[in-house]
């Protein structure tokens, strides 16, 4: 029980590897996610980003390596850990027949049933800019961007210490991206560790404290935003983003 009080950050991955036969998806990934920090994960399609997210969220067991959440070395991401992390996948993962509020309330009730707290659905949804009239419309009538907001709202409702976001900016317009970026910054200031993958270079540059380049399953570059030299970070970060190549942005 005392373990529940200890923070699960920093999350440290050590030589995480994943392969299917001869196809290597991740090779010896070392990564540290700190509290109060946004890490941007960039890389071409098929570089292993989604696999890394799945491993962090406990949906996939890596073939090798070590996952450390706070003080704990973790073999299985158990319920106690899952209560403190949230994963927003590439697809919004919402029940299409239910409304936005109902979708959130289901997960809130599930949390309550486990003895966990959750922020009120309406507050979170409005905070992310969902109009009040849309709260009870079935999610299947939503645009991709709206659904994406609902998914993010569901993720942050439980005040997670680790927030995993796989391409959250897809299909959002400039205003939506700005809104989402604002929400992310707020989450960071609340104390969350955030891992974010995106092809949206501008937003990445704006919100990330650190950029990590994943290439063919390995982390090949890392740049950190220093306190002193914002221009230097921008230059180095652009270099990393340039390494992904322009073709892949179009593909996303």
């Amino acid at each position, binding site marked *: 029980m005392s373990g529940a009080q200890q923070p699960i950050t920093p999350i440290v991955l050590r030589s995480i590897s994943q*392969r*299917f036969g*001869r196809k290597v998806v991740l090779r010896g990934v070392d990564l540290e996610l700190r509290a109060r920090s946004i890490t941007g994960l960039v890389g071409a399609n098929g570089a292993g980003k989604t696999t890394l997210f799945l491993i962090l969220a406990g949906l996939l067991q890596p073939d090798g390596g070590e996952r450390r959440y706070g003080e704990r070395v973790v073999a299985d991401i158990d319920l106690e850990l899952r209560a403190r992390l949230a994963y927003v996948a590439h697809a919004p993962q919402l029940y299409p027949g239910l409304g936005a509020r109902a979708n959130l309330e289901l997960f809130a009730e599930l949390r309550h049933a486990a003895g966990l707290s959750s922020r009120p659905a309406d507050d979170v949804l409005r905070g992310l800019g969902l109009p009040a009239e849309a709260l009870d419309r079935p999610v299947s009538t939503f645009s991709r961007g709206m659904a994406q907001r609902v998914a993010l709202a569901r993720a942050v409702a439980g005040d997670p210490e680790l927030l995993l976001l796989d391409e959250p900016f897809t299909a959002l317009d400039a205003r939506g991206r700005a809104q989402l970026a604002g929400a992310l910054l707020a989450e960071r200031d609340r104390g969350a560790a955030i891992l974010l993958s995106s092809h949206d270079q501008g937003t990445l540059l704006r919100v990330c404290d650190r950029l990590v380049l994943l290439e063919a399953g390995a982390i090949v570059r890392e740049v950190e935003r220093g306190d002193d030299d914002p221009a230097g970070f921008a230059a180095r970060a652009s270099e990393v983003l340039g390494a992904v190549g322009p073709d892949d942005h179009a593909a996303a």
Partner: protein
Amino acid sequence: MKRKSEFVVPLLFLAAAPLVVYSVQRVFLHTPNERTMGTAFKIFFFHVPMGWLCMLMAVISGVAAYVQLRRRSRTASAVALAAAEVGFLGGLGVMLTGPIWGHATWGTPWTGDARQVTTALLWLVIAAYLLLRHFGQHASERLAAALAIFGAVNVPLIYYAVKLWKTTHPTTGVVAKLPPEMWATFWPGLSALLLVSFGLFAIRARQLVLAGELDDAYVRLEDSRA
């Protein structure tokens, strides 16, 4: 580096060779004909061991699959697949020789009784397992393991189903009532079959483990170049 297992397989076959000769000689020359079923009874000496082999392999496959699922062991995965293949072979043997025996003794290839049906069922589960292992994607390997476990659970059901459906098929009673000289012929035959099958099983399992290690080697080679 030579491993212990490399000596096991030739040893199994070496031990099996005289047994095969001995059991064939016993089956065809020594053993008196069974009174009601006639000469065709000689099929019994390999038909029944094949059935036992099929069930034994299904159980081995199920246990190995459980270990694979719980501990993510690649060796267990190889053992599960190899056992399923040999079990499939045994089941096929039963299903093909059964009708021949049935035709010779009862005049009908398929009596449709519980044991036949349930053996066929076990065989179908094994076949489904092999299909899933072969055509499923990487993630379905775990599902295949669950399938193998269900196959193993089916084995006691097979015995139970016989009790539930009392029919024309020689039940376990026939085997138990066999005169001693029949048993003397039965055991060498069973041992010969088991030795050969375990030899094949060991070869296959080692092939699969080797294939996995080969994958590792390729990956390491690629890593060292990167």
